[in-house]
Structures are given as C-alpha cells and as structure tokens.
C-alpha cells in the first residue's frame, strides 16, 4: 500500500519545543518540583500575608510572651506581637532581599565577567584580579564592614550581599564566555560578517545564562542566609520590620523562657533556603548536558 509507505517515511519523531521539553524534564525532577512548590508557597504567603492574619506585624499588645495557642499559632514575643504574623510578613523581606541581592550581583558580576571573557587582555587581567581579591576576603566580614559604612538597613544589607556575590557570577560568566567564544557557532557568526555586539548579544549571552540561572537560584538561598546573619548581628532590617534574622537576635534572651520566639523564625529561614536549594539543584541536573541522553 503506497499510502502507508509515504505515511511512515515522513513520520518524524515529533520533538517538543524547547520550553515544553524543559517543562517535561522539570516536572519529572522531584527536587525541582518540591523546591518550586515551596518557593511558590512562600511567595503566595508573602503576597497574601494581610489576609492570613488578623494581626499587624508591628502592633504591640498586652499578651506578652505567650506560648503558641489557637489564637497565636506561633506564640507572641516580648512586645506581645504575634509571631506567626511576623514570620509570614518576614517572607516578604527575605524574598525581596534575596531577589534584589541576587539580581544585583548577577547584573554586575555578569557584566564584569562578560567584559573580561569577551575582550580578554588587560581588562581580563584587571577584572580577574578584582574577583580574586574579593573572593579572598572573608565574605561575612566584608559584608559587616560594608554595612557598617553604609549604615544598617535592609537595603544596605542587600547591597553588601550583592557585592560579596559579584565574583561568583563574574567568574562563572567569564568562564562561560570563554568557553562559548570558542564554539563553532560563534566562529560561524563571525565568519558570517557579524559585528561584535551582535555576536555578544545574540550568540554568546543567550547561551551563558543557564549556569547563571542555576547559580542564581543557589545564591538566592545563600543570600537569604546572609541577610539573616546580618540581621542577627543587628545590621539588617530596621525595626520594626519583621526580618527573620533580626527576630532571632531579638528573641535570643528568651530562648529558654519562650523558645518559640526562636524556633519559628529559624524554621522559616530553613524552609526558604531549602526551597531555593532544591530548585537550584534540580535546575542544575536538568541543564546538565551529561544528564541528557
């Protein structure tokens, strides 16, 4: 039967569109799915925080240091504020800080890495040395020093975290660019008569961003911890913002008399960081070419 012949001959294995392909492997990846569920959950909570709780995060009351109850799920602190409320509002701060700190370091780091990798020469030498130097500093001390200069506050903590993470992204970007610069399709683009700018933006950059995205997700996790650490040292969010690290520091005196004041903000940090680590891990596996057949 002729029809059948034609039929099967033209049958191509219908491959999916890249994003569909990605979604399929993504959904199949357990840790990526769990991670993104956690993150979406946190984002949701952060957005609808006012709906979830009848309390205001900064409103003091006379119910000082109450243990968890039906009314106050996570108990109250020494000013009678509802800890559950503070924890869920805290998600806003942590996500905000993590996001902008990471975006900041991605933008600056990638830009420097791109210049170093693409142009090479003295620019590379200078930028790479700067990365070496920044990396050699003990990160948290550098952040402390910077926040001391800029003054405490969530935005300054964010800037400090962004700065200490610059070399991570810078190096990553540089090595990606160096690798991709040697790829045949970049050479092909050059042979095609394309200008540097176009090669950079159409051919090199789009192929560099997967490792950056993976690292970005993982750095989000560390940024949340770093922000909490600065908060814990009193260099983070300004009162009465319910930042988790600051809450931990504030409730340290009550660790024995009111352990819930410490347990819940801590668990919130762990959950957030875990979410991003899970997602980052998952993304890394999904994008890892070795994992692909």
């Amino acid at each position, binding site marked *: *039967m002729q029809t*059948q*012949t034609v039929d*099967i*001959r033209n*049958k191509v*294995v219908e491959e999916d569109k890249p994003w569909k392909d990605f979604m399929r492997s993504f959904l*199949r990846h357990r840790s990526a799915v769990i991670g993104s569920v956690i993150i979406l959950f946190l984002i949701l909570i952060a957005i609808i925080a006012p709906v979830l709780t009848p309390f205001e995060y900064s409103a003091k009351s006379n119910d000082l240091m109450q243990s968890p109850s039906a009314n106050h799920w996570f108990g109250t602190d020494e000013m009678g504020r509802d800890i559950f409320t503070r924890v869920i509002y805290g998600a806003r701060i942590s996500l905000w800080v993590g996001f902008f700190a990471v975006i900041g370091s991605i933008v600056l780091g990638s830009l420097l890495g791109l210049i170093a990798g693409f142009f090479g020469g003295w620019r590379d030498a200078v930028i790479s040395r700067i990365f070496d130097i920044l990396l050699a500093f003990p990160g948290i001390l550098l952040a402390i020093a910077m926040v001391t200069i800029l003054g405490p506050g969530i935005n300054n903590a964010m800037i400090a975290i962004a700065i200490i993470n610059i070399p991570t992204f810078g190096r990553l970007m540089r090595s990606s660019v160096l690798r991709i610069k040697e790829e045949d399709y970049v050479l092909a683009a050059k042979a095609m008569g394309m200008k540097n700018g176009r090669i950079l933006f159409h051919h090199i950059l789009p192929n560099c961003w997967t490792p950056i995205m993976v690292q970005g997700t993982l750095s989000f996790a560390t940024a949340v911890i770093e922000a909490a650490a600065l908060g814990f040292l009193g260099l983070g969010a300004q009162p009465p913002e319910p930042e988790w690290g600051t809450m931990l520091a504030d409730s340290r005196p009550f660790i024995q008399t009111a352990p819930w004041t410490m347990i819940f903000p801590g668990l919130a940090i762990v959950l957030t960081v875990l979410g991003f680590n899970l997602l980052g891990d998952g993304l890394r596996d999904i994008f890892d070419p070795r994992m692909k*057949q």
Partner: protein
Amino acid sequence: MGQSILDISTLELHFFTEKGVIKAIDGVDLKVGEGEIVGLVGESGCGKSVTSLAVMGLIPTPPGKIVGGSIRFSGQEITHWTNKQMRKIRGKDISMIFQEPMTSLNPLFTIGDQLVEAIRVHKKCSKKEAQSLSLAILEKVGIKRVGILKQYPHQLSGGMRQRVMIAMAMVLEPRLLIADEPTTALDVTIQAQILDLMRSLNREFGTSILLITHDLGVVAEMCDRIVVMYAGQVVEEADGRKLFKNPSHPYTQGLLKSIPKLDENQKRLYSIPGQVPHPLNMPQGCRFAPRCEYVMETCWNKKPDLYEIEQEHLSRCWLHQGKEAIENGKGDADTT
C-alpha cells in the same frame, strides 16, 4: 572455521529509560571462531558497543538488561553470570580495548601501575615480575622507551596510548580480544601501524579478535568474516570476500555504494535516503524498510529473520526468503 570461542545467539538487550524502553539490541547472532578475526560494522548507535559490553558483562544495570538470547564463551553460558564470576575471565580470557585511547587510561596512575595491576589481578606474581612482564609486552607492541613504566598517560601520544591499551589487553594472552573502534580516533598512518600490530598478535598468539568499526575499509583489510548491524540487529553476515563481492542486504549494498573509493573514480555517489530510525520509534517490521529501495508490503509489518542465502552467508531481508515464508509470516510484527 574452527570451534567457536564466542557464540552469541538471538541476543536481546533493552535499556529501560525514563522516556521509554530502548531496544538497543534486538536479535544479534554472532560467532567468533578460534583464531578468527571477525568484523562488526554498522552506523553509529546501531548497538555495536552495547553488544561487546554485553559480552564483557559491563552493561550498566540499571538501565540496561539482557532480556533474551544467550552468550556463550568457549562453550560456557555466561549470559547471567554474576559480576564476581565475570571478573575471573575479564582481562584474562576476554580482553577489551576501547575507542578513545585518550580517556581509557586513568590519568592519575602511571602506565606501569596500570599494567602491573592488570597482571596481578589474575596472576600471582611479585611486582618485579609483573613489571618485567609489562616491559616485555610493551616492547612487543612497539614501545621501547626507557622509563615508560614511570610515565603518565598524558605524556604519551594517542597512538602510543592505544598501544599501551593493547599491551594491557594482551599481556595475559587472552583467547578473545574485543576491540571497539580501536583506531577511529587515530590518524591513517598511525591506524595502519595499530592494525598491523593487531594482525601480528593474532598470528602470533592465535588470539581471536572481534573488531568493531564503522570503517568498511578496515574490515575489508582485516577480517575473515564480517557482520553488518543496522539499528540493533544483525542484517548480514558473510565471509569478507563474499560480502564485498556479493552484498545481499539492501543496506549493505547501499553502504558499499555510498562510500567514495580510492581505487576508482565515481561520478556520483549513491546515497541511502532518509536516516537511521530513532531508537524509541523503531519501524514495526523490517527496521530498514523506511529507507529501502526494494521495500514491499510485508516489510512494513513483519520482521524478517536471518536467512541463509548461500553457505555461510546470512541476510535479514524478505527479498531472499521464499514466498512461503512471507505468507507464513515467520517473524510476527512486534506489537509490544
């Protein structure tokens, strides 16, 4: 052909992956006689390496699993041997060399370490003895450098590394040597050296060789018998001369017509239309049907068998099988 040292029959091996079951080997029949050099040719991905790894018991499990057929080594059924049993014959009775001489040697150990280790796994002897044995075999494969035992793989050229691999495989004088594309990564002049070396080892020790390659020229020069694979199946098997003179499977024919030849001037090359089927989406009947010039109705539905078209010349094609066989539909459509 003497007594066969390796006898694979109707071997089936599947990989159970997330995307589905890959039937990497779906009917491989292959015999290697004592002292014989058998060539296994076929396109990339047709299952040559998997076949050889199955013989060595080195298929990664999971995802791979032998689901049918048998492998016999000098009369013994080794298909379902445990790792521990296999270990006894690996390196001693059956040796293997791989395609990539660059990555097949551990970069962190010296040549001497790796050779001595290969010897002492199977042979009780002192380190000294093992070293002198190593030097002797290295000399045999044409490496006479002083201090070679103390050198690391990266200090050698590709050709030398492949010689070291051969030395390592040959040092215990195995009865069967499996060479998986041993020269693909090498230059022609070096390839000639290596092939020459293998041939002389075959003569000297009487080692049987299963030579896997996709280069028809290499098999033509080296092999007594040739087995052609396509998409996980053996499609044709014959004595070297017969095969080149009288290829019978349309795939073999196409293959021979499509390669440019040094010794004649062709105006235009033949080309087999289409491409190798996707491993997850194999045609139901004959796997070559979508690309075949002579495709018939039967070919789409029924799997052909290996059919002896003349003495010691097998082919898996409905063209050569009698009408009667077609009607009986000996090979049922694979409906799984």
